[in-house]
């Protein structure tokens, strides 16, 4: 079972920043790690339908995982909590990371122009912009999932599918182009940090040995001893490469 007793209860918006920060420190990494799992799953879904025809079973399983996480987050109000809290850098980055993964699909759905994104970065100091970006990230994950699902699974209608495929490609590329290289690395370094506890927390099993989880992760990597994140990163490198080619042409 998850360590549910450690979860914090719903805040209302009147708590001062200090109290909120203290509350956050009391949060186990569970919420952060659950968020990381959500991020990772969304990346997997987006990346997988860029290559050959995606493995439908894998896509369905990942999408179901995303749905599960979102349901749980909605149930214990974490979804709402993201709206109300005003926090330090750590959760900003987290919001940013979710936002990145979801924004392009949401923008797609709302027909917004992508260029507005860069202004969000500057506006993050302001509460107003924060709230709106936070609101976006809550709605956008669900939206992203739906868009991704229809993109990934509509294999039957060739014309439509080709359009979707192209649309999804565009989404990814727009995302990458608008991001500075550093922040892409930040995105995955944020996810990376929480992995070493993710196993124990999310699988609900506290192992007895003080296993070096980081070390454990290293062994899962390829023989060339890249980091455990290498799969995501190398996929991104491929994407960068593709973007370069397309931009030049």
């Amino acid at each position, binding site marked *: *079972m*998850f360590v549910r007793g450690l979860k914090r209860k719903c805040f209302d918006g009147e708590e001062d920043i200090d109290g909120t920060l203290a509350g956050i420190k009391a949060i186990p990494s569970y919420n952060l790690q*659950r968020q990381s*799992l959500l991020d*990772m799953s969304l990346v*997997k879904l987006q990346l997988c339908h860029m290559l*050959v*025809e995606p*493995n*439908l*079973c*894998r896509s*369905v*399983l990942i*999408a*179901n*995982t995303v749905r*599960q*996480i979102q349901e749980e987050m909605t149930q214990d109000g974490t979804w709402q909590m993201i709206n109300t809290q005003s926090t330090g850098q750590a959760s900003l980055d987290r919001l940013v990371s979710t936002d990145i993964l979801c924004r392009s699909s949401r923008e797609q759905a709302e027909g917004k122009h992508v260029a507005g994104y860069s202004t969000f970065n500057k506006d993050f100091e302001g509460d107003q912009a924060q709230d709106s970006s936070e609101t976006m990230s809550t709605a956008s994950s669900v939206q992203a999932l*739906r868009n991704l*699902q*229809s993109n990934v*699974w*509509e*294999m*039957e209608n*060739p*014309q439509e*599918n*080709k359009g979707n*495929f192209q649309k999804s490609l565009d989404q990814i590329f727009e995302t990458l182009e608008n991001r500075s290289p550093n922040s892409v690395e930040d995105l995955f370094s944020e996810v990376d940090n929480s*992995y070493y506890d*993710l*196993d*124990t927390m*999310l*699988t*609900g*099993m506290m*192992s*007895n*040995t003080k*296993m*070096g989880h980081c*070390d*454990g*992760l290293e*062994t*899962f*990597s*390829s*023989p060339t001893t890249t980091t*455990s*994140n290498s*799969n*995501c990163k190398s996929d991104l490198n491929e994407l960068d490469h593709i973007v370069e080619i397309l931009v030049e042409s």
Partner: protein
Amino acid sequence: FSGAGGGNDIQWCFSQVKGAVDDDVAEADIISTVEFNHSGELLATGDKGGRVVIFQQEQENKTQSHSRGEYNVYSTFQSHEPEFDYLKSLEIEEKINKIRWLPQKNAAQFLLSTNDKTIKLWKISERDKRPEGYNLKEEDGRYRDPTTVTTLRVPVFRPMDLMVEASPRRIFANAHTYHINSISINSDYETYLSADDLRINLWHLEITDRSFNIVDIKPANMEELTEVITAAEFHPNSCNTFVYSSSKGTIRLCDMRASALCDRHSKLFEEPEDPSNRSFFSEIISSISDVKFSHSGRYMMTRDYLSVKIWDLNMETRPVETYQVHEYLRSKLCSLYENDCIFDKFECCWNGSDSIVMTGSYNNFFRMFDRNTKRDITLEASRENNKPRTVLKPRKVCASGKRKKDEISVDSLDFNKKILHTAWHPKENIIAVATTNNLYIFQDKMN
């Protein structure tokens, strides 16, 4: 089983290894399926490059009573080629997903091989004689001028070097929108089924231009899709019965006599979830990667990510036996999700008498479970155990705590070395185990 037991325990010995020696694996050489034929004399492998290689067992040598015949290459042919779907702008891989042999009816052998979209029936026949002495043809095939013929002779068959020819006899195409994961020949030996992620089709071996759809789980709105078909198989004795497994860990048994479209199952096999083990990965690891009927037809075996389960067809509520393949991976599920290993599809197989089941794992380990003695063993397919007739040493993975000598810790396992495909000879204790690009053949020690 681990060598210390009674006289019935099998002692496995290395017999042969096929494939390239070097560590640099060519993608096309990755083995994607392994299957013995009904007599066990032939062993077929399919690879990612679309090739089929068939090995034939040597006739038993009376003088060499300590080992059974070796398997040598009998035939190699290109079964499938890469294709391009122009409408979807996507490649269709030539990788052979499954091979299934037909029972032998005459001198020739027949097998079905399939990639993601197309199934082919191949005839493999031997030619060891050729006709000589035609009147109108020279030996090299050129035609003779009839006016130069002065005498007549009767052509005769003369022996020649054995030639094994493979020719495609039927091509069953354009019936699957999604990727084919299974083919299964019916016990009537006239029909077979092919299953993709969302549909199952029934074919007649003689008819290529039409097939019947017998299962369709595609939702009207694809956004509602939450479950796919992962494997399907015909019952070995009842020609009206088949099963299919799903990504949610369920198995449905269907009776084709009930209706034309078998969307309503006759039986639903599902084990209730263990709430103490619940996690975000519970569904993924419950997804069934393989389903196999026992030879008797009374039981079926399913493989999910961490375990092998034996079901009695008469009991739907839970399996009668469960064997843990690599339970030590349960605490690593997140990492395995991240590197996609959690989606690896392991197969499983029965021995000829249905008393032992086998399946693969990581680090080139494979596992066997004896259903009678309840003992299990872990062995490794590696070139280090190269000597024929040397008994393989059992392996042990240390899950936590102090690692004993000769044990390997979970963190040292190589997750790139996975054994997904294994096969057991239908009659003898001979097994074929496929690592990434090598095929290992092990036999029991004969005294």
